[in-house]
């Protein structure tokens, strides 16, 4: 190994282009014959980086205990969240680290196939993954074969049941799973699905061990996390140990203002007040603020911006991204969006805030997946953090910052086909 892992781990030694297999093996050591025991994985304390923070070892053990064997390991690099871009950055830096981790997990479960999933719209990432897989050559005697899959990039397409559903029968629709933990399957084979960053960390733990992995981060959330930071018109990716104060993450992303508010966990996440800059970025520190690290999405809203306008755009986007399978989501989210839209335009009425809260209560927890719950969480925390803005708008006053262009990135309307599902 020649690479310096003291500041960056999964993003170590960025060359400005994805590393070839040869460069990767110079940096990290050989990929062949990498192995990891469940013991070591458990001791590392690795948790999923896709948002749910579920212990990876528990997932593997649960699948090992099943009667049917696990046939597929899925690398989730869909990144449907508009404010996230860390998985693409990871694959553009160390693609083989991700494939290493997937290979190690596949060998652990005797799975014979790794499916790397990248959204169809992310063409440059597709090219990177395609090249990396080809570099590894055809199926070796030992270890899984790799395949690239490119589902359509809708917001919920990266939700695990929706993604496996697409791999199984070409429908990017979430499924109803009342009992958890539940298994996902393609055909008759069980599936282990993890976020690309989780796989990359497995690739490191297999090389350097659990003790090395635990040497940074917090005891409950060891290791590093890649954050996607936006807010100043630029998108940055910052890899930091869990527990790093938000202030240093924002500094690392060269955000040089005190934000009005910070959105954590993406468009289904939590708004917190911009004063909380010294709180550590890990779930234990964020719990008192009812926030979580999620998939590492951080939006730092600049001081001159309108909370109502930002929320109206995001909720409208989330409503259009509903799979429209469940009534409360299909009707509830557009109702929220319509109320927010008139509020943002200054056509508010005094009753509209109560109406928004009532709609949130009506929708919460009533979908098959967590999409509607995320929107409700987003809006409830927005109503608290931007209380002044909302009251101002509800009283029918024009907003100070109505002319300021919105900050939060929304994919262009024309790029989103309405109600078209595969």
């Amino acid at each position, binding site marked *: 190994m020649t690479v310096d892992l003291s500041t960056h781990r999964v993003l170590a030694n960025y060359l400005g282009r994805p590393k070839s297999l040869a460069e990767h093996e110079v940096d990290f050591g050989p990929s062949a014959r990498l192995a990891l025991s469940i013991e070591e994985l458990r001791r590392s304390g690795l948790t999923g980086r896709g948002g749910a923070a579920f212990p990876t070892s528990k997932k593997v053990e649960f699948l090992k205990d099943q009667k049917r064997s696990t046939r597929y390991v899925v690398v989730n690099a869909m990144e449907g969240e508009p404010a996230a871009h860390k998985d693409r950055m990871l694959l553009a830096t160390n693609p083989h680290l991700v494939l290493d981790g997937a290979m190690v997990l596949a060998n652990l479960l005797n799975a014979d196939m790794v499916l790397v999933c990248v959204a169809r719209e992310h063409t440059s990432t597709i090219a990177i993954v395609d090249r990396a897989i080809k570099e590894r050559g055809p199926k070796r005697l030992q270890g899984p074969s790799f395949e690239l899959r490119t589902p359509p990039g809708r917001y919920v397409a990266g939700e695990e049941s929706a993604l496996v559903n697409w791999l199984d029968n070409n429908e990017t629709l979430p*499924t*109803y799973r*009342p009992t958890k933990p539940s298994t996902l399957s393609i055909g008759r084979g069980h599936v282990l699905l993890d976020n690309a960053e989780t796989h990359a960390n497995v690739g490191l733990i297999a090389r350097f061990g659990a003790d090395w992995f635990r040497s940074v981060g917090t005891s409950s959330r060891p290791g590093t996390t890649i954050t996607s930071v936006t807010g100043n018109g630029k998108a940055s990716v910052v890899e930091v140990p869990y527990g790093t104060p938000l202030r240093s993450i924002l500094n690392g992303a060269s955000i040089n203002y005190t934000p009005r508010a910070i959105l954590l966990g993406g468009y289904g996440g939590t708004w917190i007040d911009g004063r909380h800059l010294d709180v550590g970025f890990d779930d234990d520190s964020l719990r008192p603020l009812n926030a979580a690290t999620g998939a590492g999405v951080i939006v730092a809203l600049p001081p001159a911006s309108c909370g109502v306008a930002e929320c109206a755009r995001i909720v409208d986007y989330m409503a259009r991204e509903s799979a429209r*399978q*469940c*009534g*409360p*989501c299909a*009707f*509830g989210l557009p109702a929220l969006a319509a109320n927010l839209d008139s509020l943002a335009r200054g056509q508010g009425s005094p009753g509209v805030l109560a109406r928004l809260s009532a709609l949130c209560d*009506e929708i919460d927890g*009533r*979908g*098959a997946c967590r999409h509607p719950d995320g929107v409700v969480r987003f809006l409830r925390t927005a109503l608290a953090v931007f209380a002044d803005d909302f009251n101002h708008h509800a009283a029918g006053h024009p907003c100070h910052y109505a002319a300021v262009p919105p900050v939060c990135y929304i994919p262009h309307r024309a790029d989103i086909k309405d109600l078209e599902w595969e």
Partner: protein
Amino acid sequence: MRRTVSFRLVVDPIRCDGFGHCLELAPELVTLDEWGYPILHSEPFPQSDRELLRSAHLAVRGCPRQALSLQKITNVQER
């Protein structure tokens, strides 16, 4: 050891199309939201409540989308 069995009506929100038959068949367990989709009472009811159990069974059988099911909850209490 004492075992208590209770039941709860649950809905598969993907299957449910808001026909509203459940409200007719089990009004004690169901309210409808403003779009006509059922909000089921989350509090389980005991097995001894025959009236409720009968209504719940009717609702499960009467749902045109077969979206409802009866969830059995067994609590074991140490004495």
